[in-house]
């Protein structure tokens, strides 16, 4: 009789653990998705501001051309080329904004302040997203998760190699 109770306990505990693990993984998948959606939105906004800067009096014709091209590239890039395109945009913005002291107009200053605030957010968003992806990959490599296929049909999240030079 006591044996049965023990088996029952082990089975129940096992079931609870599986349910708990599934919830855990579900939460991680959810976080990967939301953090990416957030990051994507911020990057889109950055590209939009870059285009505005390109059109404003901050940039000379040559850098305007460079910036416009980079911004469009970042917007149109597919997932594999995204991080490279975003780094390209960072580089273009960096070139242009090297010396901010020459910028006088108030609209331009607003634009730059908005950009720098956005950049701070992008940095945090990247940290959160990369962390979520790494965690998910780590958890999915674990024995229990693989054997019981707790991930279901959800695709393994891809690490986006964001360089730290994102402005």
């Amino acid at each position, binding site marked *: 009789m006591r044996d049965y109770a023990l088996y029952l306990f082990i089975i129940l505990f096992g079931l609870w653990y599986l*349910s*708990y693990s*599934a*919830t*855990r993984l579900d*939460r*991680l998948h959810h*976080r990967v998705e*939301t*953090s990416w*959606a*957030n990051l994507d939105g911020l990057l889109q906004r950055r590209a939009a501001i870059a285009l505005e800067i390109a059109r404003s009096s901050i940039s000379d014709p040559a850098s305007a051309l460079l910036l416009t091209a980079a911004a469009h590239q970042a917007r149109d890039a597919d997932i594999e080329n995204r991080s490279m395109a975003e780094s390209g945009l960072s580089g273009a913005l960096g070139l242009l904004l090297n010396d901010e002291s020459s910028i006088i107009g108030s609209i331009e200053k607003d634009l730059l302040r908005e950009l720098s605030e956005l950049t*701070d*957010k992008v940095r*945090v*968003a990247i*940290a*959160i997203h990369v*962390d979520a992806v790494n*965690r998910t990959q*780590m*958890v999915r490599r674990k024995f229990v998760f693989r054997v019981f296929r707790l991930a279901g049909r959800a695709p393994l999240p891809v690490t986006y190699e964001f360089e730290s030079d994102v402005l």
Partner: protein
Amino acid sequence: MPIKKLRIGIVCPYGWDTPGGVQNHVRDLAEYLISKGHFVSVLAPVIDESKVPDYVTSAGKPISIPYNGAVARVLFGPIAFARVRQWISSNEFDLLHLHEPAIPSISLLACWAADGPMVGTFHAAAKRQKAIFAIGPILEPVIEKLTARIAVSEAARLTLTEHLDTDAIVVPNGIYADHYRDGEVVQKWSGNTIGFIGRFEEPRKGLPVLLAALPIIARFAPDVRVLIAGPGDSEEFRKSIDIQLKDRFEFLGRISDKEKADLLTSIAVYVAPNTGGESFGIILAEALAGGAAVVASDIPAFDSLLGHGEYGALFPSENPQELAKVVIDLLRNEEKRKNLAKRGKEYAQRFDWDVVAEEIYSIYEMSMVGSTGVRLASENRGWQRFLGREGKDE
């Protein structure tokens, strides 16, 4: 700060009415956020419930356990857990900010109990193989629930990567820099004086190192005096001081912020001889903001806070001879001292709450994206859904 007002729940693991760095940090952050119009509730262990501010909710009386070379007053157990759950479910927070969630405390319980956007701040910098971190595998799934992690220093971040294999964003502790900006010179505290603020009885604060260095310093600066502020039994400590040096010590006891500012402005050098166990060194940030020339041991936290010697002089930890050398050099060379203090004061603005809280706030914002607020985790479990008992916020 944005227009949207948030409901923020902050959990402080250590007893609210015992002095400590984490408690101060939580208090200042809560008051800053409240002053910006947010709703903030702090959950903390409290000894005397009649003396806490409105925004603090008591989780019960703390118990003392030895932790990280000091006695920590924390709280856990079933009753505390029930209070944590009650606090979470009745407040409908947008976000929880848990402090030091990796030690057995109400922060960890809150992390376990809640579901939704959570930010964790890690304060401690501990050496590897502490028993408290040996429970890593159990902690892992809990800590994982934190949407974003903050470390208060590079040292704390390193501890986190080593013990829990996860990264964090570094945001330093905050100070109200303007409290210390306009200290007045008090005559009796000026001259060749060395300042020290803190719980001087604790060995890791390093006062014995300063004691050992003092005879050497006195040889070159005969009128040198040491001013010690902070809680502790000064009579007991006085007995341990060499009879010839006794007159050089003055114990000020606990001092107010105003007195602290005046002290920092008046003294010639501020000495922080800590031997370890320090993760950030808030007192150094305050000393810099108060315009003192700072001399500190080269433990990792101080080294990084002082920009590797750029904003304050460093000496090899637990080495009285080197400490004496650095202090004598500064006492003799007024121009060097003034320059050091000036650089430090400008640099200290970086730790002002206006800067630090904005950084924390932007992490809050990023963590809350796509969420519907904080609720109890049990309302969200699969089997609850299976039974048709949906979480009440859904």
